[in-house]
């Protein structure tokens, strides 16, 4: 295990950036959980809202993927 301080910083930074993906997981869970709570109250309206569900999940997920991108960039592109 040899390497420079800069490399160490690179790995630490990538690890820190990966925390953001966990935050996105919270966001996606929030969207899906609230959808389920609403769907169980009014199941007949649930089918018409699946598109909205996926759009919401996609937007929440995108921010997590930005964090993933930063981690990948730190590992491979710096």
């Amino acid at each position, binding site marked *: 295990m040899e390497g420079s301080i800069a490399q160490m910083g690179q790995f630490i930074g990538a690890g820190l950036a990966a925390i953001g993906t966990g935050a996105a997981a919270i966001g996606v869970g929030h969207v899906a959980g609230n959808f389920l709570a609403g769907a169980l109250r009014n199941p007949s309206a649930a089918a018409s809202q699946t598109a909205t569900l996926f759009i919401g999940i996609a937007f929440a*997920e995108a921010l997590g*993927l*930005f964090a993933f991108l930063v981690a990948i960039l730190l590992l491979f592109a710096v």
Partner: protein
Amino acid sequence: MATETTNTEAKDGSGRVIAFVLFGLAALAFVAGFLDDYEGSLSIHPMDQFEVSPLFGSGDVGLFTITNVTMWMALAVLAVVALMVLGTRGRAVIPSRTQSMAEMIYGFVRQMVEDVAGKDALPFFPYILTLFLYILFANYLGLIPMAFTTTSHIAVTAIMAMGVFLTVTIVGFIKNGASFLSLFWVISAPLAIRPVLAVIEFISYMVRPLSHSLRLAGSMMAGHAVLKVFAGFVGALGLAGIAPILSVVAIYALEFLVAGIQAYVFTILTCVYLKDALHPHH
């Protein structure tokens, strides 16, 4: 009664076949894990599978080099053509299985465009269907073991996302003229914070091609890297390698789901952006 029993028998039979195939694949992976020459330590290279290399011979990858990406993209296009052109060639009133698959996808995307973007977005339906079919087939072809997932490369998805972004922006300006800019001017908000919101809306508009392409490429790349990491554990663990094999099977099922959902999400976001271009007033 007789038909019922044959039906359940057929179901059981196909279930047994699927289980047998799954077990065979797991056993193969197990053996392959042992044969893989691993150097005593845990060395996993999950990103190696995304390497672009020339298909014929070796050398540098130039602008017109035929690479493995080219091949898998061509295969995806061929598969789409096979389903949509050859499948619907018969134009039977009672569709064959292939034809009903093609009709189902066509109807599904058409319904989505109509529901999300509105009736006046239907001229763009062929474009959206093309995007959906290509992404769907590229994602599913990438799930074949040893295959290459073309949509895991940001270069591939960025071209599609930039295409959508340019189309939407140009269409928005052609249809609405300068009033397309009212997309950034949120009327429902108090006047004092509208300039701030305009800046935020503008940034979120400009970041669209990035998030649009990264969502697809990122989730495909991440999923396949996770598969590879778990596959790497198999050889290192010896007999206990059966545990990572089971998790690979589970993750593979998840990836199967994700491949479809990401194609759906890319398409539905295209519809949402198109709706913004056609009806920019909040």
